[in-house]
């Protein structure tokens, strides 16, 4: 059998990841009403052919609930990954180019954000914003930029001294044009990988913070809520309430982690041929 090379694998994983994302989001949209339907004639059913993931104590179909919950988490994750990576790009570049004071302040802020354990920071932000959906979204979006900002800062620091940038500067090209035309194309791969790898992190943290009871209300069936509700019924042996939603969550995260890691390896010339 011919060995499948890294490029094809990456394309494959990406297609799979995007397809999965689209399917879950679409399903969540279609089933958003059905996820709340209760039917007492079918409560506490184990997983079977008719109800793939079983039903809960109100007779809600867990498969549909999981899909809608996951689609919610995915939307929050995409938003958070987008905001965080743009923030990282901006702050990282600013730190590297705008002089010592700005650099010191931004580095300081990065250290500060990293000094508070992530979950605790999310609790604080959620508390500051009054614990709604807003608190979760803002919290997850504003806390995932630190490590990527560090990477970008280092990268820009090196770029600044590169011959072609120095030449451009000598030729009188403006600062913004240098940043856009010469630096950004160079940074783009790093940025893209950062963006993709932030996404699973954001989803995990969103699930964690909602699991703890901050943010989303029980009517919004996010994965974290579903799992925290399932805790009450665990001792009665209703294992399916916790197992399947969690598995789905893990599957989503793994898919994007693997896709992102593959992309990173492809873009890094040191390991591209392995």
């Amino acid at each position, binding site marked *: 059998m011919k060995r499948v090379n890294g490029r094809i694998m990456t394309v494959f994983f990406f297609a799979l990841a995007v397809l999965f994302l689209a399917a879950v989001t679409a399903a969540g949209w279609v089933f958003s009403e059905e996820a709340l339907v209760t039917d007492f004639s079918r409560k506490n059913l184990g997983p079977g052919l008719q109800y793939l993931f079983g039903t809960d104590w109100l007779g809600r179909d867990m498969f549909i609930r999981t899909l809608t919950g996951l689609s919610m988490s995915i939307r929050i994750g995409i938003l958070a990954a987008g905001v965080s990576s743009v923030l990282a790009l901006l702050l990282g570049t600013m730190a590297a180019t705008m002089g010592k004071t700005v650099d010191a302040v931004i580095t*300081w802020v990065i*250290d*500060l954000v*990293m*000094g*508070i*354990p*992530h*979950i*605790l920071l999310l*609790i*604080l*932000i*959620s*508390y*500051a*914003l*009054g*614990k709604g959906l807003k608190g979760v979204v803002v919290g997850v979006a504003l806390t995932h930029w630190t490590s990527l900002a560090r990477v970008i800062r280092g990268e820009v620091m090196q770029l600044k001294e590169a011959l072609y940038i120095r030449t451009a500067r000598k030729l009188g090209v403006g600062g913004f044009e240098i940043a856009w035309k010469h630096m950004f194309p160079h940074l783009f791969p790093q940025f893209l990988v950062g963006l993709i790898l932030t996404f*699973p992190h954001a989803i*995990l943290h969103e*699930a*964690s913070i909602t*699991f*703890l*009871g*901050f943010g989303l209300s029980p009517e919004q069936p996010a994965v974290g809520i579903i*799992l925290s509700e*399932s*805790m009450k019924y*665990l*001792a009665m*042996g209703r*294992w399916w309430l*916790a*197992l399947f939603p*969690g598995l789905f*969550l*893990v599957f989503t*995260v*793994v898919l994007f*982690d*693997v896709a992102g*890691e593959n992309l990173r390896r492809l873009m890094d010339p040191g390991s591209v041929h392995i």
Partner: protein
Amino acid sequence: MKAHFIFIGKQTIRMLLLTFFVSLAAFILISISPIDPLQANVGQVALGSMSPEQIAKLEAYWGVGEPPAERFFTWAGDFFRGDMGVSLLYRQPVAKVIGVKLVNSLWLMAIAWLMSGIAGFVLGVLAGLREGSLLDKLIKGYSLLIASTPAFWLALVLLMVFAVWLKILPIGLSVPIGVEASGVTIADRIRHAILPAVTLSITGIANITLHTREKMIEIMESDYVLFARARGESTFEIVKNHALRNVLLPALTLQFASISEIFGGSVLVEQTFSYPGLGQAAVTAGLGSDVPLLLGITVISALFVFGGNLTANLLYGIIDPRIRRGGARA
């Protein structure tokens, strides 16, 4: 030697300053909160039936209406003197609440930190040594999977298997229910700590394993390992004499830097197992608007995180002879 002390001094001052700013940031976040502690804890109905005097008294107790800047400096000043205020939910000094919870959590975190560090390191070395082998693939796959698994879900799964299904371990808390405090044995405590500690250890392993593996692969491909092989050293000797020394340093740094993650994990795990530790207290404080307790826990945890980073920096200087010599010259 003098340079070394200056280095330590600088790092310590930096750490204290950072902690101060962490407390300031946390304080700002808490004071912009629109949550009215009265509404959250007393409830709309009860408030409606109270006289204005009663409400005023409650407002004074929960600190409603004082200017934030003044409050911060009062709080910070007291904190510096060792008075962290009174927890509003537990009705005890925050220092005392944190002290009790911290002991419970430290157990867990210390065990998890050691176990995940040692196991992760060993697994990483084994995987990196035989890159591409079945063992390597298994270890790598396992680490990637665990890195993607939320700690609380893993906790739920372990609960389902060991507490509900097999019934060999207790389902939660740190002591048996309905037993007097004096009747609780060490064995009871250990039995209750097993599941949380195992969960935390398992989740902590992934990071260190993957990192060690990468480093190990790099080292095994290096020139000095090739030369050692040419000299006729066996694989065991190469690992013992060359690889371990070089791979241990970054692993140690990473492990000390991971304290923040272990702490975050403990919040989730303690909540799932109803284990009365610092993490659970943080969640309770956040949900119940117990501002002094939440602030206290934030500062304590930041001290731990920065302390870990500081230790890593110092250890680097002690363990790595290159940095030791370089540091003395600088």
